[in-house]
């Protein structure tokens, strides 16, 4: 009953999306505003319909309806309530429904904005968002239906179908398989929604860009709307990436946070192009340049979002994240191909209208710094993309499957990121149009000297890795130039207004949120870079089999094996938990409990590290293996990850900076409001 209702809502939502698309596009040549209004209402209606479908699914999940294929696949009786709800996006079909629901939420939010000045864009914004919603709902309805019931013919394997096939009897599973244990982690509960939010919010800027191209209103109005939405998507995607890293660090048990896995790359690629866009859009706003390029970036970001979803959902690349192989691959491929061709055709049609209003003046200018920034972001994106698709390409071309792993990405992306951080330190100091080398040199003097001093000090301390030395040098320079920018602004304010330092600083940031929010993000990048350099260049590891009371040494740490407990929990886990004592420089600093949870019904083990975390380093212990009689010994793998906490702290600052930069500017809105009213009157 509930399943039928959910499925019916899905079909209606698909019909609404199709109707809205058709009516919106046709309303323009037919000059029928009523049709557009109807399309608008139909587009808005997809949200309550998809909400209803989602509520139906959640109801089925939490009330143990194991006659439904999806429910029996992703939940089990032993799972707590909140996990049953998160199972909404724990499997293929449900996550596609979740994606569609989020997409229609964002489409709805975009529909409800004030349209007064760009009313002519509306038909195409409706069309683009509804085509995307329709595509995903279509996938759910046609290929991956979460409401399908289980049936059985004779004593055969149960299978899923919406309607009763001939000769089949309903099948009700006694209990479900349960959610993949790896997904039962707080980080995992927030991480996918954040990534999806990031993904779907990038659809809105794309819709506005396409609408601007179709209506030939490629003035600067659309770019303001687009920038705001891109920033929203960027915020969520950044949050999703950071949470994903934290989840990997806490749960996957390999001592790292980023493995250059195809699916991680899939989420990283649109982030890179969006970051490039957020920078180059400033040139368009200030100088009316790079208009074509910005459109290319928006189109690429959208294509990469769909490509990313395709990678995760189609099983074309197997990885920890990928769901099983499925029939939706070709559908995705066609959709990406079509949108790409249509977008580029529209772009070329408008090519001549998108002329730059200015020429590049000098190699040493803010413009060329932004240009270089874009080149590097695109370089990283292209390298990562190439590495991700290389196994497929090599197999198609030569029949020999060749893959690349983390060493490839580190070697390729590392130097480019280093160049970006350096540019991040120098770029903001450059003047628009033409920077004076003398003035630039003067501003860079103190940071450069400090960078050289830091590198010298590290050399004396015995650090010989030139990559790390170069990295720390660049980081010092970028930190100081950014801090000096804050200092200069604050001092100028103190002089002109007579405020005290703190008041001057806070009003400075509050009055120029975009600029100083951006600089806070730059500082966050510096913090994260320190964490990445530390954990990449100086990670130490060891492993050993210890009998009770024996010890293992790593760096300044010594750990002793004190004991092991094995017990069953009431949520279907068999837990083996070791107790170890950690000594630093001979002093007891704490006890850790690395453990292995074995999920009995799904036969899946999960290794949870015991971590002692400080600003300086993380002592990260994994329980690898143990004897039934604890005294006979257990095997541990131990990592020492220096500075890794800087990465997480930097992540927090990053989000803070993005919030400051994206926060709506109340004052400016108020100033703009009377003008808008005036226009309407």
């Amino acid at each position, binding site marked *: 009953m509930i399943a039928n209702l959910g499925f019916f809502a899905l079909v209606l939502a698909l019909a609404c999306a199709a109707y809205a698309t058709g009516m919106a596009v046709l309303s323009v040549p037919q000059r029928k505003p009523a049709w557009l209004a109807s399309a608008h209402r139909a587009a808005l209606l997809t949200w309550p319909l998809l909400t209803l479908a989602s509520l139906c699914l959640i109801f089925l999940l939490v009330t143990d309806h194991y006659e439904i294929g999806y429910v029996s696949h992703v939940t089990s009786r032993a799972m707590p309530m909140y996990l049953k709800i998160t199972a909404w996006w724990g499997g293929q079909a449900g996550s596609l429904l979740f994606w569609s629901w989020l997409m229609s939420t964002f489409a709805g939010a975009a529909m409800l904005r004030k349209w007064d000045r760009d009313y002519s864009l509306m038909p195409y914004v409706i069309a683009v968002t509804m085509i995307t919603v329709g595509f995903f709902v279509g996938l759910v309805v046609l290929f991956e239906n979460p409401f399908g019931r289980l049936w059985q013919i004779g004593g055969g394997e149960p299978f899923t179908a919406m309607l009763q096939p001939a000769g089949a009897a309903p099948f009700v599973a006694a209990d479900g398989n349960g959610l993949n244990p790896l997904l039962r982690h707080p980080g995992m509960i927030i991480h996918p929604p954040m990534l999806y939010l990031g993904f779907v919010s990038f659809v809105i800027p794309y819709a506005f860009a396409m609408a601007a191209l179709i209506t030939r209103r490629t003035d600067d109005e659309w770019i303001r709307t687009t920038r705001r939405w891109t920033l929203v998507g960027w915020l969520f995607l950044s949050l999703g990436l950071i949470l994903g890293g934290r989840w990997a660090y806490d749960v996957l048990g390999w001592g790292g946070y980023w493995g250059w896995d195809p699916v991680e790359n899939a989420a990283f690629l649109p982030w890179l192009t969006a970051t490039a866009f957020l920078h180059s859009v400033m040139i368009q706003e200030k100088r009316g340049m790079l208009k074509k390029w910005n459109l290319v970036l928006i189109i690429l970001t959208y294509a990469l979002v769909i490509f990313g979803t395709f990678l995760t959902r189609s099983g074309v690349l*197997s990885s920890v994240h990928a769901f099983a192989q499925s029939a939706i691959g070709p559908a995705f491929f066609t959709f990406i191909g079509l949108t790409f061709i249509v977008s580029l055709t529209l772009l070329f049609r408008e090519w001549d209208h998108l002329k730059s209003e200015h020429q590049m003046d000098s*190699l040493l200018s803010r413009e060329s710094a932004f240009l*270089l920034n874009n*080149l590097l972001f695109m370089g990283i994106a292209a390298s990562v993309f190439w590495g991700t698709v290389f196994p497929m390409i090599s197999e198609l071309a030569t029949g*020999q*499957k060749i893959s*690349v792993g983390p060493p490839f990405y580190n070697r*390729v992306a590392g*130097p480019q990121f280093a160049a970006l951080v350096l540019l991040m330190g120098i770029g903001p100091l450059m003047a628009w149009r033409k920077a004076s080398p003398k003035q630039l040199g003067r501003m860079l003097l103190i940071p450069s000297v400090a960078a050289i001093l830091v590198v010298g000090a590290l050399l004396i301390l015995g650090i010989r890795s030139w990559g790390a030395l170069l990295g720390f040098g660049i980081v010092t320079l970028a930190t100081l130039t950014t801090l000096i920018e804050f200092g200069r602004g604050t001092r100028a304010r103190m002089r002109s207004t007579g405020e005290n330092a703190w008041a001057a600083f806070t009003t400075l940031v509050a009055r120029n949120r975009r600029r100083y929010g951006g600089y806070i993000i730059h500082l966050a990048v510096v913090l994260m870079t320190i964490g990445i350099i530390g954990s990449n260049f100086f990670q130490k590891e060891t492993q050993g089999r210890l009998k009770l009371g024996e010890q293992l040494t790593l760096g300044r740490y010594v750990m002793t094996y004190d004991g092991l407990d094995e017990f069953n929990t009431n949520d279907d886990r068999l837990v083996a938990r070791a107790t170890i004592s950690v000594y630093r420089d001979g002093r007891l600093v704490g006890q850790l409990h690395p453990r292995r949870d074995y999920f009995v019904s799904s036969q899946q083990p999960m290794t949870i590290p015991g971590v002692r975390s400080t600003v300086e380093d993380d002592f990260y212990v994994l329980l690898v293996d143990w004897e039934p009689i604890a005294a006979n010994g257990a095997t541990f793998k131990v990592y020492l990850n220096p500075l890794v906490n800087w990465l997480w702290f930097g992540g927090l600052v990053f989000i803070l900076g993005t919030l400051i930069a994206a926060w709506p500017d109340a004052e400016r809105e108020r100033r703009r409001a009377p003008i808008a009213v005036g226009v309407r009157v």
Partner: protein
Amino acid sequence: MAQTTVTSDALAARAGGGRMKFLVGGLLIIAAIVYLVATSLQSTAQYFFTVQEVQSKGASVVGKNLRVSGAVLGDTIAFDPGTLTVSFTMADVSNDTKAIEAAGGLAEALHQAAADPNAARVKVVYVGPKPDLLKNEAQAIVTGKLGQDGVFYADELLLKCPTRYEESVPAQSTGN
């Protein structure tokens, strides 16, 4: 009038020259990135081979990053807890999903490979704790390098016991 033409020509030429600088600079950077990608690809690429392919290619793949899968021979498993050294021999299994299905599933293909004295074999050495799943007729997926001595030195050892995964052929067996 003539004067104006000259000036605008000069301006155009200057703008063209400016463009040139940007173009050359951009191309240089792109060339550097392409070079970086190409060389890194060469030195870090990982080749997927069967045991048979490793045997027939022999010396030509020594030192390259390889990923090889095969059937573990139970009698050959040895473990030294002192040095945490695991060693075993594995036999050739096809990496073609269809061939495996034709053989009656992965478990059957592994069983046949282990029983076939003529199947190509390679000795594997791995330093690390002995995995629970390392037993007779398990599928081992090893990544590492082939030594001059014909022994495969694995940096990573993955194991699959097909009986647990009856429903489908594990992705790793096809070299994904």
